[in-house]
């Protein structure tokens, strides 16, 4: 942990993530206005700056853009967390099984992963949502599915590398069960590369959710999400460029936080790559 904090990139990332998380937790308190309150007479108000009622202006229904961006933090982090958790659990379990059991089962699992990798990720995500129907949950599921192969592959590689290590053989000789070996000895020692993938995966999940919602395939109204805000902002690029600009900046900062952390972690764990 100390080494992580010493790495400037990782630290910058952690700070950004910390700020975004606080914003999500205290969204209700931080939002200067009710993010759902409409006022048709105040449509597309320009940003009024600090001190004004609408610091970042209003959107197509006269709602406060800043308050909506603040509330949107929740959806983005929520989607990221759920999607990454689903893909992490699935990917790691598949990877552990494939690497540990080997043989035919390994072959089947890895071919399945190859099949998922045969599609460009965003296209597969769109395809899955199209089949299941557009909703926030299906979007999260789709984002999770396309991320599973990478996690499975890395975990499998780790298992194969660690399986023959002395400490694993020692544990086996001591009579430790398969599950104990897998989770207590192998998984714990595979933590570093997986952490990097998780962090970068959060960033990817947030961007993908924004893209899906932008296309109308993710978060549905009245829920607030940055992707949906951008999709409505597109209709008024000329009259209200501020809506698209600031909403996008929120996405970039959040994703940047996770990318910085992921990059920093990789440098810490594997200094050769620097």
């Amino acid at each position: 942990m100390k080494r992580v904090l010493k790495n400037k990139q990782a630290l910058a990332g952690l700070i950004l993530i910390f700020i975004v998380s606080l914003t999500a937790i205290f969204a209700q308190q931080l939002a200067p206005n009710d993010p759902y309150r409409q006022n048709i007479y105040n449509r597309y108000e320009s940003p009024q700056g600090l001190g004004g009622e609408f610091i970042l202006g209003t959107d197509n229904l006269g709602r406060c853009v800043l308050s909506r961006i603040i509330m949107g933090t929740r959806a983005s982090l929520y989607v990221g967390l759920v999607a990454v958790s689903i893909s992490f659990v699935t990917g790691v379990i598949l990877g552990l099984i494939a690497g540990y059991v080997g043989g035919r089962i390994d072959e089947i699992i890895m071919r399945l992963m190859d099949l998922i990798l045969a599609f460009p990720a965003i296209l597969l995500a769109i395809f899955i949502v199209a089949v299941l129907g557009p909703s926030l949950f299906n979007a999260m599921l789709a984002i999770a599915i396309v991320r599973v192969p990478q996690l499975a592959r890395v975990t499998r590689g780790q298992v194969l590398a660690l399986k023959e290590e002395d400490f694993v053989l020692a544990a086996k000789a001591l009579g430790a069960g398969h599950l104990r070996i897998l989770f207590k000895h192998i998984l714990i020692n595979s933590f570093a590369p997986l952490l990097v993938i998780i962090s970068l995966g959060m960033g990817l999940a947030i961007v993908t959710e924004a893209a899906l919602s932008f296309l109308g395939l993710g978060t549905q109204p009245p829920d607030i999400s940055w992707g949906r805000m951008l999709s409505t902002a597109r209709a008024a690029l000329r009259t209200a460029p501020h809506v698209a600009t600031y909403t996008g900046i929120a996405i970039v900062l959040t994703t940047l936080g996770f990318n910085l952390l992921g990059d920093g972690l990789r440098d810490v764990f594997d200094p050769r790559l620097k």
Partner: protein
Amino acid sequence: MQKFIIRRLLNLIPTIIGVSLVVFFMIHLAPGDPITLMVGDDASLEDIQRIQATYGFDQPLYVQYFRWFGNALQGDFGLSIRQSRTVTGLIWERAGATVELAFMAMFISILISVPLGVLTALRRGSWIDMGALTVALVGISMPRFWVGLMLLIYLGLNFDFFPLFGRDASLFRGIFTFFTTFNPQEMIVGFRHLILPAISLGTAATALQTRLMRSSMLEVLRQDYVRTAKAKGLSDRVVIFKHALRNAMLPVVTIVGLQFGYLLGGAVVVESVFSWPGLARLIINAVSQRDFPIVQAGTLVVALTFAVINLAVDISYGFLNPKIRYD
């Protein structure tokens, strides 16, 4: 080498079959009967049966699959449900626009990333290096479609040079016309329409490749043969361009290939922002209209292109690096 190519080609077959199975059966698991959508709720039973027979929907699912896949292998993807045209025709018409967009995005990103990667590696730790790395990281964090929106707002709306949407002419064809008839009109129109979508599609690729080029160059500069070349008294320029750059390009080639696949995927959202009449937008529209034949065929075609590109990358890697053995 030959053996390797043949083996990789044979590997394509299970991929094609797997992808076609996924695409076909997932779509048929989807809720929403396309026939009802086509004819409305108050259609008579005969009408429904007639249409079902036209599209072969009255057959068992596996029969439908074999019929569809068999025809697909011959380039026939059936009829679109919403537009009374063949799916193959629609895809053919749109594919060019997507390929052109992806190529242009790739071209821009190589044009920027290779020199920038070399420069940052040579000036490691300088402000240029730090600045470029920061910009690259921000570039990776930006959603492509948002880059598109920003380009539209801050360039498209302010300069008449950039049209806001559409694709009035093909740049490739324009270039061809220019070299045959010396009339640059079509080329210019094509370029004006293409440039903003291509930049927004290529941003992330540029950022990734810059970082890769930099680290690859740093790696190579550390090698003994570079030191030897320097010790021989060769000028910096010769060492960098003749010895280092060539070898540093290797991993970049791999990524360029992979990126091309991602560009095809990323085009989905970018095409939607710029109303670019490409394959990706055809698929998206078909998704919202539940036009199954188009979604099936479009996804299959893109996945196949993706697979073929990966194959090409693998093979070209062998040519570029004779040290790699394939058996």
